[in-house]
């Protein structure tokens, strides 16, 4: 009964979304206030209904209601409670329902917090948002219905894929979807602005927080996913250039570009059409991501149940929204005359370079991801595009961004000089080179990757610090520090996010260049050394977990006579899913991770053991978290908290363009 109520709620939400798509848009066109006002309660009700449907599905998973096909296929009574709950979105249908929940949540948020928006713009934004919801409600109800019942409920379920039985599943997909779907708000704002034919500073200010929030969530989601892969897949890679990873990385890159160009719209009323285009593309890449993950046209390690029919429908959604938006853009972009003028050396030019580099690097990822498909269809060549291509083609653009970033971020708006930036950065430049030289001298082997990464990391972090420092004016050190502490939070956000970028660059380069690996057969009691550590295999035990069997090794780690830790890497076997997994054991550290994996017993006795020392591994995700934290700071800036409503008053006076 409850299940059916959930199903009905979903159908009802679909109907409301259709109404919300049409009525406010017509109302905005005719200037009918009542019709426009319909959008807000509709958005709220849509969200509540979807929330109810989601709660019902969660309840079915929690109580192991195997009369529901989805629960039967993806759950088991022995599964720990947390995985029963996270299992709701550990499958295609459930994850689509989560997607809908977040989509309607964003729509509702625009209704709840959109008081400062002009009525007409708000009605149009909510209407466009509802049109996206309509497409996806149709997709869920017609191709991926989570509420399908089984005629004869089985006694027990088939369990969740063991790789997904991990706390990572609790956080990674929700954050990722908050990011993907959050970009739909930027898209809706862009379309509404195109329909209105007007983009001004106030518009830039309304779009920025949504984009910033989406980008932050995407950053956290991607970092969590990368970290999850790092400890779960058993050999300590953190990024595989897999199509599904790329699917999340492309919108991230475009959203990062969008964030920066929206600043130009907000502060200088320039780069308007460019910003609109980025907003369209950012959500377009989100949809492309959904297509890649759910259609299975590209083989990936972590695609969901693949179904060509579903893929086809998403492709149609993608074509309609992206095609429609771009057509509208082509007709209307000319009306978006920019006002701000700026000289060649200025913050605006710096941000144009940022936009170009981010967009082109996104294009590298894009073409690398779809090339196997294109080559097969057009040139009849079956080929692969893997990490070596992306490393070679993508890295130069990131290096260019890192080199340009400190300069660009320090230039003045409208008309800047290189001298100011050069003077402030000279010290950091010397330090960066010195650090690189030091790294080169210390490291064994003569790979250039490590030293270059060190130099870029120091350069970017130093640039962010120098930017804060230069803004504190001329005074005593204490007074300047006091002023820095009082800078607007947006400035802190900028500095923090840029420092995070530097930290991540450093982490990636250091870990890739200097990781040590040791693969060997070890007997119980044997002791061997890797780097400055010694490892001893103390024993191997067979144990039983809640829904798996495990072979757990006991390995002690020593540094000289001091024991650093005790590691218990496992090989698990999940009988219901009939699937083995490896569970690495890791000692996380600021300077290095010690990463241990146990393998098979060998014919002549002993166990295969793999040990990695991964220097600065945590800096990769730490940097990403700093980037997200920077987003938080910016989002909490006074200007965005209180700015919207006061901007409304001034927006009326801005002449239509």
């Amino acid at each position, binding site marked *: 009964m409850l299940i059916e109520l959930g199903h009905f709620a979903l159908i009802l939400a679909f109907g409301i979304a259709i109404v919300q798509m049409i009525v406010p848009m017509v109302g905005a066109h005719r200037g009918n206030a009542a019709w426009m006002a319909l959008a807000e309660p509709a958005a709220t009700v849509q969200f509540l209904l979807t929330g109810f449907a989601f709660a019902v599905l969660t309840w079915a998973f929690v109580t192991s209601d195997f009369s529901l096909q989805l629960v039967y296929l993806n759950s088991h009574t022995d599964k720990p409670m947390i995985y029963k709950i996270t299992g709701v979105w550990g499958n295609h249908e459930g994850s689509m329902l989560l997607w809908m929940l977040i989509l309607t949540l964003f729509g509702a948020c625009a209704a709840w917090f959109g008081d400062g928006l002009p009525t007409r713009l708000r009605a149009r934004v909510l209407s466009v948002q509802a049109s996206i919801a309509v497409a996806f409600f149709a997709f869920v109800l017609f191709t991926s219905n989570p509420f399908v019942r089984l005629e004869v409920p089985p006694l027990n379920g088939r369990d969740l894929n063991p790789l997904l039985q991990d706390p990572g599943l609790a956080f990674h997909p929700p954050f990722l979807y908050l990011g993907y779907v959050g970009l739909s708000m930027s898209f809706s704002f862009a379309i509404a602005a195109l329909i209105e034919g007007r983009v001004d*500073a106030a518009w830039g200010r309304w779009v920025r927080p949504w984009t910033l929030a989406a980008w932050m969530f995407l950053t956290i989601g991607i970092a969590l996913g990368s970290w999850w892969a790092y400890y779960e897949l058993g050999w300590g890679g953190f990024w595989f250039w897999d199509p599904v990873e790329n699917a999340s990385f492309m919108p991230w890159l475009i959203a990062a570009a969008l964030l920066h160009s929206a600043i130009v719209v907000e502060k200088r009323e320039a780069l308007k059409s460019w910003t609109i285009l980025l907003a369209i593309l950012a959500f377009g890449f989100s949809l492309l991501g959904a297509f890649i993950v759910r259609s299975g046209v590209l083989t990936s390690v972590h695609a969901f149940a693949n179904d060509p029919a579903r893929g086809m429908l998403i492709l149609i959604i993608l074509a309609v929204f992206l095609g429609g938006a771009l057509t509208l853009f082509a007709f209307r972009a000319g009306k978006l005359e920019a006002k701000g003028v700026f000289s060649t050396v200025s913050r605006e030019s710096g941000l144009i370079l940022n936009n170009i580099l981010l967009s082109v690097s996104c294009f590298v990822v894009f073409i690398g991801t779809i090339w196997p498909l294109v080559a097969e269809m057009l040139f009849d060549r079956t080929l692969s595009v893997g990490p070596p291509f992306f490393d070679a083609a993508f890295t130069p653009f990131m290096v260019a961004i890192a080199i340009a970033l400190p300069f660009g971020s320090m230039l003045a708006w409208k008309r800047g000089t290189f001298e100011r930036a050069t003077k402030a950065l000279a010290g950091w430049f010397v330090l960066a080179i010195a650090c690189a030289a030091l790294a080169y001298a210390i490291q064994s082997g003569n790979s250039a990757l490590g030293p270059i990464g060190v130099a870029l990391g120091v350069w970017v972090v130093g640039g962010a610090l120098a930017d804060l420092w230069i803004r504190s004016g001329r005074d005593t050190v204490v007074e300047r520090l006091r002023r820095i502490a009082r800078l607007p939070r947006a400035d802190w956000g900028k500095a923090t996010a840029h420092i995070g970028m530097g930290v991540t660059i450093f982490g990636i380069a250091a870990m890739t260049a200097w990781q040590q690996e040791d693969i060997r057969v070890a007997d119980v009691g044997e002791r061997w050394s890797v780097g400055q550590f010694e490892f001893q295999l103390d024993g191997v035990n067979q144990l039983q977990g809640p829904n798996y069997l495990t072979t757990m090794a006991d390995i002690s780690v020593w540094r000289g006579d001091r024991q650093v830790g005790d590691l218990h890497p496992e090989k698990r076997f999940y009988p219901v899913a009939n699937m083995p997994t490896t569970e690495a054991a890791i000692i996380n550290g600021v300077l290095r991770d010690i990463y241990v994996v146990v393998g098979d*017993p060998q014919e002549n006795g002993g166990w295969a053991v793999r040990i990695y020392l991964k220097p600065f591994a945590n800096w990769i995700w730490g940097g990403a978290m700093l980037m997200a934290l920077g987003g938080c700071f910016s989002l909490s800036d006074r200007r965005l908290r209180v700015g919207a409503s006061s901007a409304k008053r001034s927006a009326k006076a801005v002449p239509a363009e």
Partner: protein
Amino acid sequence: MKRLLIIVMLLASPLWAVEPSEMLDDPVLEDRARALSQGLRCPVCRNESIDESNAILAKELRIVLRERISDGDTDRQAVDFLVARYGEYVLLRPDARGANLILWLAAPALFLIALGIGWSTIRTKRAAPAGLSDEEKAELEKILRS
């Protein structure tokens, strides 16, 4: 019963990426083999290199690769040997020949075009009648301050 379970478990356990028994004694050759195998795709897996893969075929290819290298093949010859048998599908770094030139050159080309567009945007901005009217300036001030 427990014993039986353990046996079942061992039977079902995956083969392991690079195994100690496969590795060559000569560290220089082994390093070369590792580097090469990271650039070769396992033909039966979902987007994994033979270096990472647990599949039986990947293991066999790792061994074949090491045999070729031990027999004195150059890197190129060893890779070509596998490409001749499994097609260019196994190359994770597609070669820059024929249509693949598009793949390799599209991004740099787009970068140059984008730079051109960016540069012309900056030039037109510069050429545009400079400055705002006083009224506009006051308006902008108000917006920026709020």
